[in-house]
């Protein structure tokens, strides 16, 4: 099976979906002539031309709303936010137009648009360029939210997002673009609402999504050496959420640690912790723990920025805590 980067997997998904449906267009800053700020759209302009791969000015609210408007009348735009940090400029469009048009029109107008770009911290980017904003999107009814953690998932999930008839926020990660993984040459899609059990285990359920998944897998190897057998769940689709897979796992392990690189207050992680506490109460042998980013803006200094984020050590400590091994 070919081994490709997440970047290439996303590019393939875009190319294949643009081949499949002439209504799919890509619009955003630097997506065309520059091939994407993170080079996700390499060669798409050459192949599909300037009508379907459209460079915009730096006008996030404007081009996000334009994507929504085009979606109302039959196109299926993929709107690239250079980073999800800049989506804050466009949040009114996402919240008030994309998410609500179907509902407030009594079902007349659906919005098949994908908003995608790198989310969460990379390195040395400072406070305004290092935010994990998934909580904001998951908070709003009408939006679907996906966040892949591998090249395989990135391709299969982006294709699903593009084919969906709803607005989908598709969260990538700058540091993940270069990660490699096996991706088959035959077509496949990964549906909404299906979590992936990345590692099967008996003692503690570890739950996360996107880039921190790697931390969970690394922590699991270390914990295995100490005799703690973890089950690692990659949520993949944040909204809708695969609650059944979570509950089945926790009912088996009786312990749960959730890792979410967003801030702790009102996050995906805190919501999953609530759901597990609410629905698996009789099965739990320890309180559910949440490893989030620290509740501070991201500092520039590398030692400090690493300290602000979830880490393998923090995860190991939490797993030991719920196992009463500290």
């Amino acid at each position: 099976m070919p081994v490709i980067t997440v970047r290439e997997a996303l590019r393939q998904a875009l190319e294949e979906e643009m081949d499949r449906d002439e209504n799919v267009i890509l619009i955003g800053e630097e997506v065309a002539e520059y091939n994407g700020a993170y080079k996700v759209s390499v060669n798409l302009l050459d192949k599909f031309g300037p009508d379907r791969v459209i460079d915009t000015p730096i006008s996030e609210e404007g081009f996000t709303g334009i994507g929504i408007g085009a979606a109302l009348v039959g196109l299926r735009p993929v709107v690239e936010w250079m980073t999800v940090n800049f989506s804050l400029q466009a949040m009114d469009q996402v919240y008030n137009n994309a998410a609500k048009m179907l509902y407030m029109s009594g079902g007349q107008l659906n919005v098949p648009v994908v908003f995608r770009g790198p989310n969460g911290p990379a390195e040395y980017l400072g406070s305004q360029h290092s935010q994990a904003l998934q909580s904001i999107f998951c908070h709003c009814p009408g939006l679907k939210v996906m966040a892949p953690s591998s090249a395989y998932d990135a391709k299969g999930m982006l294709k699903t997002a593009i084919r969906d008839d709803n607005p989908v926020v598709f969260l990538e990660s700058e540091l993940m673009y270069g990660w490699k993984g096996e991706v088959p040459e035959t077509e496949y899609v990964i549906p909404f609402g299906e979590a992936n059990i990345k590692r099967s285990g008996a003692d503690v359920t570890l739950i996360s999504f996107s880039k921190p998944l790697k931390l969970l897998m690394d922590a699991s190897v270390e914990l295995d050496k100490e005799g703690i057998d973890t089950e690692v769940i990659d949520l993949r689709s944040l909204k809708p959420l695969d609650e059944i897979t979570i509950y089945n796992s926790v009912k088996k392990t009786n312990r749960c640690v959730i890792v979410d690189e967003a801030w702790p207050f009102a996050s995906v992680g805190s919501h999953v912790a609530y759901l597990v506490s609410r629905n698996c109460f009789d099965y739990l042998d320890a309180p559910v723990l949440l490893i989030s980013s620290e509740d501070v803006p991201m500092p520039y200094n590398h030692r400090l920025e690493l300290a602000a984020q979830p880490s393998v050590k923090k995860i190991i400590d939490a797993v030991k805590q719920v196992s009463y091994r500290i």
Partner: protein
Amino acid sequence: METKDLSRYSKEFLHGLLEKMLLIRRFEEKAAQMYGLQKIGGFCHLYIGQEASGVGSVSAVDLSRDYVLTAYRDHGIALACGMKPGFLMAELFGKVNGCSKGKGGSMHFFDTSLHFLGGNGIVGAHIPVATGVALKVRLKRESGVVLCFFGDGAIHQGSFHESLNMAQIWKLPILYICENNQYGMGTDFRRVSAVTDFTIMGSSYGIEGKQVNGMDVLDVYETVSDEVNRIRKNNSPGFLEIRTYRYKGHSMSDPARYRTREELNAYREQDPLLLLKTRMINNNQITEEQFEAIDHRLKKLCDDAVKFAEKSEEPALKSLYEDVYA
């Protein structure tokens, strides 16, 4: 009141304009009455005084290929597009037979079959959406033109400026129409605009603006027709400032104490209905008696709309979760 040679227009056409404006007037009066009776709740922004703007503009387009979007003062433009008073009144009543199944309300009228895409509640936020509709028309090489209405309050939003810029660089078939009713809620537009001549607002984007007398439906019709024809031919955006005046407050809760009775009366003397009616009488195209008969018929139509709304059911509780996702 000036006389004008109406010989270039058919009697049917003039009657159509007059009836549409009168229907809006009577519908809005009925809506105000029903609001007073607490049949309608929340925000309710009336179009009384501005009838010529919507009717003159929409009469200049072909809704089988053209599109119309407006803001939250949408009753009049919805009626001008041909939406039926009963469905609109039922929507105001929050009933299931309303155009948006009772889930939209006063600010969210939609009818996709008439290419009327709202009914948008956030000041200026639909301007990019309308621009996206025009992008689709352009990319699909269709012959349509988008009319995008907004008020004087919206013109200082970034969404307006971002949209005009992109519409011009991509040569989109859209006519931006600022209905300047001179008060953004309670604020005289002269107090909050660096320029009082809005026709120059598109100049930074190479879009030449024109001012239109919004009390004269024929002036509106002729100017919008010219612009729509030009846009269809040249595929480049246009901008109009329609100077108009709302007789009522911003919404039902606004007593409009920020302006003088003299000012209001001066506009009432050039009332768009009175102006057209007088001209038609002077040109022997209608008599007082005929006008009264039409008025009687339209009042009955609005009474019937109320009856339809009264008789319609409340939406079922289970509909709460319908149309969140497609």
